[in-house]
């Protein structure tokens, strides 16, 4: 626990010392939302009752994907490049716990980013919907986040092996966000992609949130989505931890922790 708290505190301090990073967190959701918003306007909202709110909830939920991938993968790569990773890994504290601290901090950051983007967009673009349903949505968002961070552990492992983070982070975030139904109903995806989308926890988390806030029919009955999310959370957390553990062994054998 002390290890998790220490890593959390370290990342929090460092974050606030890079003042410009804060700017990025504030602006990023608005920037990425813009092409969707204008696309929606170009089509007069299409068949949606309120495409702006629809897409905005999509961006708010999928921004967690970016937080996980940038917050874990990219920063791990940075630590590797600067050389601090070795100093951390030669302490008796387990690397997975150290990473968990990083994860918790990025969770706080991601939540702040999502709420901020919802709030800002509410002002800039104007929103309708049952916003008082947000707390109830936590029952879905919570397990979704656990699943997502399990994936993050696995992704961290991938970064340690590939040692190259920019493109896979950028593209991975975008692909996963699109597949989760960020900008359109999952049902409108081509058949193969839709099947992939149904395997993502973010798809259900986002779908449940939209159903609760904007109304309409969910992909699957909500209790089923909740159960699916719980299963995915358990499975992904276990798988992510296993991958990271295996990669840790590999890195210690190949000695690739410090070079770049």
């Amino acid at each position, binding site marked *: 626990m002390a290890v998790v708290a220490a890593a959390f505190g370290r990342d929090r301090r460092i974050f606030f*010392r890079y003042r410009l990073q804060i700017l990025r967190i504030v602006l990023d959701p608005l920037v990425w939302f813009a092409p969707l918003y204008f696309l929606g306007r170009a089509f007069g909202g299409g068949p949606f009752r309120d495409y702006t709110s629809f897409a905005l909830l999509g961006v708010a939920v999928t921004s967690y994907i970016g937080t996980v991938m940038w917050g874990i993968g990219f920063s791990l790569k940075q630590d590797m490049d600067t050389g601090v990773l070795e100093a951390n890994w030669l302490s*008796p504290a387990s690397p997975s716990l150290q990473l968990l601290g990083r994860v918790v901090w990025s969770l706080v950051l991601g939540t702040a980013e999502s709420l901020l983007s919802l709030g800002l967009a509410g002002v800039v673009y104007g929103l309708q919907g049952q916003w008082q349903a947000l707390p109830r949505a936590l029952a879905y968002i919570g397990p979704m986040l656990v699943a997502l961070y399990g994936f993050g552990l696995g992704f961290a492992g991938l970064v340690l092996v590939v040692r190259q983070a920019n493109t896979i982070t950028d593209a991975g975030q975008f692909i996963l966000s699109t597949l989760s139904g960020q900008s359109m109903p999952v049902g409108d995806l081509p058949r193969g992609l839709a099947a992939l989308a149904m395997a993502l926890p973010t798809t259900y988390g986002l779908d449940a949130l939209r159903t609760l806030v904007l109304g309409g029919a969910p992909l699957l009955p909500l209790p089923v989505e909740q159960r699916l999310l719980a299963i995915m959370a358990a499975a992904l957390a276990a798988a992510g931890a296993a991958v990271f553990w295996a990669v840790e062994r590999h890195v210690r054998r190949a000695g690739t922790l410090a070079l770049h």
Partner: protein
Amino acid sequence: MAPVEVSDLSKRFGTRVAVDHISFSAEAGEVFGLLGPNGAGKSTTVRMLCGLLLPTSGVARIAGHDVARHPVAARRRLGAVLGGERSLYWKLTGREYLLYFAALYGLRGADARRRAGDLLARFRLDDRADELVERYSTGMKQRLALARSMLADPAVLLLDEPTAGLDPVSARLLRDEVRAVAAEGRTVLLTTHYMEEADELCQRVAFVTGGRIVALDAPGALKRRLGGGAVCRVELAGWRPDLSLPGEAVAIGEGRWELRVPVSDPAAELPALVAQAAQAGAAVLRCESVEPTLEDVFVAVAGQALRA
């Protein structure tokens, strides 16, 4: 059982053998040096001792714990400085940096604060402790890394090229710190390619080249191996292997070599050597006879200079 015990340790990267069946042990209170040129396998050995790298074969023990089998127990008794200033977080203050690592070593609350404060004072960082590390000088960064390695009150301290990149004054101050650390009964294992440093600091030195230990002894004993006399150094232009001159020739620049020959009676043998070189057709640029240094021993044992 010695605090550091290495037996038959090897590491292969693909087909390249970085460390080739080395064995040694280092005692409490001892400064033990691994001395060798770049690429000799020193850092690889140290990383295996830290548990950052798994050996291909062989065993390394820290305070009796097999590093590969019981890494956590071993790391509790161990401090290490590997990348020097590269192991620091630039956007933390010195104190925050130590407190963070204190938590990783299981210290908490008032204990951690006291320990961090003590170390900051000990390594003369207390007046700048609350400044961001990015404003520190290289010497201060190196001392902060050393302070970090002392957090766990370690029985064994591993230092990989601790004075690389430091100016002579900072390097000497750091060597004083290292001596003080060993005087507290800790084992210090350091790597270096500076022979003066090994000579001055280490009770025992292992010569490493090509992943093997080619000699291991106290610096004085190593020098006595040369026969207790002196070393003649003759700087030559136009040396060739087929001139069949005695000793080892070390390239020291464009078209220039230094011939190093251990002798017992320099007054007689230096002039003879100069004459012999001239006769063979090499131009003698400079000659002297000196007390043998560790580097002379290294050249004699390894047939290779420390600094290429």
